[in-house]
């Protein structure tokens, strides 16, 4: 019996040390999947960059359903992964419960605020980036009408639309902004057919620049815009390459930087509220060889000046999620 106890004790110690050796960071992707050419893929790229530079390894999992969120978190926490980074606001509720049970593990959540002492909440100022691309849209538009196509109708996407409309109106106060949402269920993220139809509907209303903040639905938006000879604006990752010369720019959301920084910090991850805005390179607009001919020097100068103003605080862009209303656009 004592032998047995010793044996069990030894294996327990072994298991513990194995767990300690496993203090790799972990990354959990949201339902969109690792290779969505957008949000989750940006997170993956950040993790890859960290792995390439440090030679470290990280654990990862792609969720298949909402029910797996808490399970995945607990599994990584039990396995000793530290820090655990999750991409997506939907983890908020699960993390609220799990974080309290593992006080020694550091968590980082993107796009959501969780008020636990061991959680870093990374929030992006998408409205600021959208404001900048809105300015570009208004300057590129000849008809004075521009469009916005959102994915699922949630406050986060309205935040994009609201910032965009403010940017448009800042350049051209007489401009018209047409805003449509694809739907109210998660299928709205993956309906390029409806995205195409929405784009055609906006074109028939006179829009000649369309901004898609709609995940996979945006693929249809960009395609239809290119087919019909109008400009489009991509989102999250740089999507300029998809239709060279026909995508005006992309609103960049540097999720990769957020993941990279969290992984770099390791177990010493600084917790608390972390805002990624125009000032610290968290959001911005894309300029590369595919859209260089579309962005003139004056346009670039105007947008860069606005970006500097936002950084310095001279220009405040209204955040839809702060009070659930938008001065520039009604949804």
């Amino acid at each position: 019996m004592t032998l047995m106890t010793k044996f069990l004790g030894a294996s327990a110690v072994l298991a513990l040390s194995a767990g300690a050796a496993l203090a790799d960071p972990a990354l959990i992707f949201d339902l969109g999947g690792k290779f969505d050419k957008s949000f989750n893929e940006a997170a993956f790229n950040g993790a890859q960059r960290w792995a390439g530079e440090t030679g470290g390894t990280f654990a990862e999992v792609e969720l298949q359903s909402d029910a797996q969120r808490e399970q995945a978190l607990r599994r990584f926490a039990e396995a000793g992964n530290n820090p655990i980074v999750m991409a997506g606001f939907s983890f908020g509720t699960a993390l609220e419960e799990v974080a309290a049970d593992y006080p020694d593990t550091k968590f980082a959540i993107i796009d959501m605020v969780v008020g636990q002492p061991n959680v870093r909440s990374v929030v992006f100022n998408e409205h600021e980036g959208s404001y900048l691309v809105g300015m570009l849209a208004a300057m590129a538009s000849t008809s004075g009408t521009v469009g916005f196509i959102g994915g699922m109708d949630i406050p986060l996407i309205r935040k994009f639309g609201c910032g965009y409309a403010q940017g448009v109106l800042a350049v051209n106060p007489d401009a018209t902004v047409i805003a449509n949402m694809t739907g109210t269920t998660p299928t709205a993220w993956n309906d390029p057919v409806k995205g195409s139809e929405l784009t055609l509907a906006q074109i028939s209303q006179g829009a000649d620049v369309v901004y898609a903040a709609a995940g996979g639905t945006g693929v249809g938006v960009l395609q239809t815009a290119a087919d019909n000879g109008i400009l489009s604006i991509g989102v999250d990752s740089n999507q300029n390459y998809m239709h060279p010369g026909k995508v005006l720019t992309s609103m960049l959301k540097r999720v990769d930087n957020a993941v990279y920084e969290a992984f770099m910090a390791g177990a010493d991850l600084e917790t608390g509220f972390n805002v990624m805005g125009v000032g610290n390179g968290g959001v911005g607009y894309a300029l590369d060889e595919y859209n260089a001919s579309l962005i003139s020097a004056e346009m670039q100068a105007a947008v860069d000046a606005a970006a500097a103003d936002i950084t310095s605080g001279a220009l405040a862009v209204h955040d839809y999620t702060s009070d659930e209303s938008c001065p520039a656009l009604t949804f």
Partner: protein
Amino acid sequence: MDLLTLLQVLDSSVRMATPLLLACLAGLFSERAGIFDIGLEGKMLVAAFLAAAMASVTGSAWIGLLAGIGASLTLAIVHGLASITFRGNQLISGVAINFFAAGITVVIAQSWFGQGGRTPQLGDGARFQSITLPFAESLSVVPLLGPIYKELISGHSILVYIAMLIVPLTWWGLYRTRFGLRLRAVGENPAAVDTAGISVVRLRYSAVLICGVLCGIAGAQLATAEPAAGFIKDMTAGRGYIALAALIFAKWRPWYALMACLLFGFLQALELRPDLITNVIGIKVQGQLLSALPYIMTVVILAGFVGKAIPPRAGGEPYVKER
């Protein structure tokens, strides 16, 4: 609201209605023969994927269409095996097909193209382009009819016209041929058909296969007919279920199916233009309400307010020759 705007909305309705119509007719054949088919969605999805994948690889939309029909047929045969030969539960087989399709398309697309479960965007040759019918430009000066011809009737992909042709074909096939009579009979009373010396199994299989072909065309339309240009995961976005609702709405009849699908298409097109509704009736209507309308109308139908929708009597029951 001027004529041109109205025509643009109707034009969009036709495009939105086409995949619904094809799927609805597919379900009509299957259910008229007594095989319930929840798996329309899954069959459309695999067809959309393989059509886009093959069109992307070969550069030909037609090869894509054939591949899509092939993929859909494969699942149709699986459904046939499960529900006719092995007399399994048809609903469960259909649900299984939907889940299988949702998973397998993404897995294959990822390992084939490495673009996150989507196919590359299709170039102009690899998708069905809009066809401008003859005289569309020259006739456009004719008042009323000219713009209707140019905007509404002309300028769709070939698959839209094929779908519209299939409606009278289905009517003729079901109501004016021996095959159609037997097909309808096998959905109402298979024992009687069997007594007359006709193979129930063969009839039901042919219905399930026709269903597969039509779902294949519907999927190809979603992924490879302009304005679409490629497959992305779960891109059918519930259209198979709306088609089932349309089928009940249409009381399992082909012309009614056309009307129901055009109506559902029109509602979906209206949802895209909230500004028009605001202009016409002066009140801002939420888009969510419009997108829910097809379902609300189906519930109203099912509740018996607009007339009774009676499904084929032998629907959902596997035929057992001897007990």
